[in-house]
């Protein structure tokens, strides 16, 4: 009997303590980020959608070495077609396709790239209505020189 009374009293006290703790949160500011209106602050290392950079004169930064293809864990995710320019004997990247729908955003390709031509952007809203629209070809991947420079600056700042 005494035991039961003790148990009841301690139970009531503990429940009251728990409820008081919950009530404390009533007055705390909410932690919700109202997403579509407010975007999260992304750190500079964030790995978003991949993009190709261009040099300041508008030429491709990619030299077609296919290193990224070799380290990519998803088979055939990155597809590069190159050809040799008969005059300058330089490799020209003709096709550069990434299937973002299958990309796992591991960042292996950006680390291996000798010219830092392939980088991760801040873009993460990649939902789409069809799988085909997630296959990005070279035109869709390539950024213009201004944006490329901005991204390069950002990455360099981070490395420093």
């Amino acid at each position, binding site marked *: 009997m005494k035991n039961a009374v003790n148990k009841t009293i301690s139970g009531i006290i503990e429940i009251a303590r728990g409820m008081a703790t919950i009530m404390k949160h009533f007055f705390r500011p909410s932690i919700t980020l109202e997403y579509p209106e407010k975007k999260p602050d992304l750190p500079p290392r964030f790995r978003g959608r991949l993009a190709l950079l261009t040099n300041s004169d508008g030429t491709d930064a990619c030299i077609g070495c296919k290193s990224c293809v070799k380290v990519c864990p998803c088979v055939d995710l990155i597809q590069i077609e190159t050809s040799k320019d008969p005059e300058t004997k330089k490799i020209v990247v003709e096709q550069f396709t990434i299937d973002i729908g299958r990309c*796992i955003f591991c960042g292996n390709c950006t680390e291996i790239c000798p010219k830092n031509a392939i980088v991760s952007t801040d873009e993460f809203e990649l939902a789409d209505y069809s799988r085909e629209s997630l296959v990005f070809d070279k035109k869709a991947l390539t950024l213009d020189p201004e944006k490329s420079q901005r991204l390069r600056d950002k990455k360099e700042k981070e490395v420093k």
Partner: protein
Amino acid sequence: MNKLIENSIKKDMLINVGPQHPSTHGVLRLILTLEGEIIKDTKPVIGYLHRGKEKLAESRTYFQYLPMVDRVDYLSGFFYQAALCYAAESIGEIKVPKRAEYIRLITMEFNRIASHLLWLGSFLLDLGATSPLFYVFREREKIITLFEELTGQRMMYNFYTYGGVKKDFPEGWIAKAIDLCKEMPKLFDEYEAIITKNPIVLERTQKTGILSKELGLNYGITGPNIRASGVNLDLRKSNTYSVYNETDFKTCLAQSGDSYARYIVRVQEMRESLKIVEQALKQIPGGTPEKLKVKKVNCNCNREECEYCGFDSKLAEKKINPMTFKLPIGEATAMIESARGIIACYLVSDGTAKPYRIKWRTPSFSAVQILPELIKNSPYSDLMPIFGSLDVVLPEVDR
């Protein structure tokens, strides 16, 4: 007619929990035989999330395989990468600099806290309390944000590499982490105020799902689950794989082996992990990245024993080229104390750039295996709290 009578006499009912059920923590199917509300028999069916991680390893190079292992357990990805890295490092006899080991230790312990926090929320959700789930997500968010700043991703980090880690801490990271370490214990106190002595929680968790020492060892249960039964099995203490021997912490034990003991052990473990992180953040060789940078300008000694540019302060032994990385012939097992128990990575290398065979031993696999023993003869309402208290992550079971 006879059959009709037979069926009506039959007392037990088959009930199929999952694969789509709000609280099976993923896609697990349990075929239960109920007599009234008492569970008489259980047959777990797994494999809905099997992604062939072991088969995939055979067709990928070591570097291609590295990002994949994060996904074995999405709540504590660092541990799996660490296990793979340790296995490969012991075959290739790659030395890991101390700073890299410290970075690994800090991230792993933070990851343990994040994982335990999420477990706490979902366990209480299984019991029916909704509020703690949101509170733990708020705290976990802080840790995840730190990880995002460090690695670039919130869950699939791909941060470790063979022989070290990929990047150093960004500027200001260590200060933020120390702040978090100071702030966290108060928040744990709040959870304990809500949960630890709540009479309903006590009623629901004490004396349910009792896991005895012998049964647990026989089934290969590891981690907090077996520590709650009083077995002092903590690889961080006994095997000291990283720089755990340089930090001071105690193994959390409980004796009763019921769901409540598992809760107590995990909550204490979170506090211990915070202590480890706090010590490691102070002891890290080379200090904060800001300090390291300032010194590097002046320090061009390149001596091995130099505090700021010696081997200990590097991130990786040498820059390993992913294109040509190969391991010699050999085999190794790396065992790691993850948030859920012992992860063993058995790696067989045949000298080529691709692993010959990788076997993952995951703690959740054993935990699901023991579930029928734990819930036998307990009411159906206790199924989810007991299952939840084992901290099972289904992708880890199916690999």
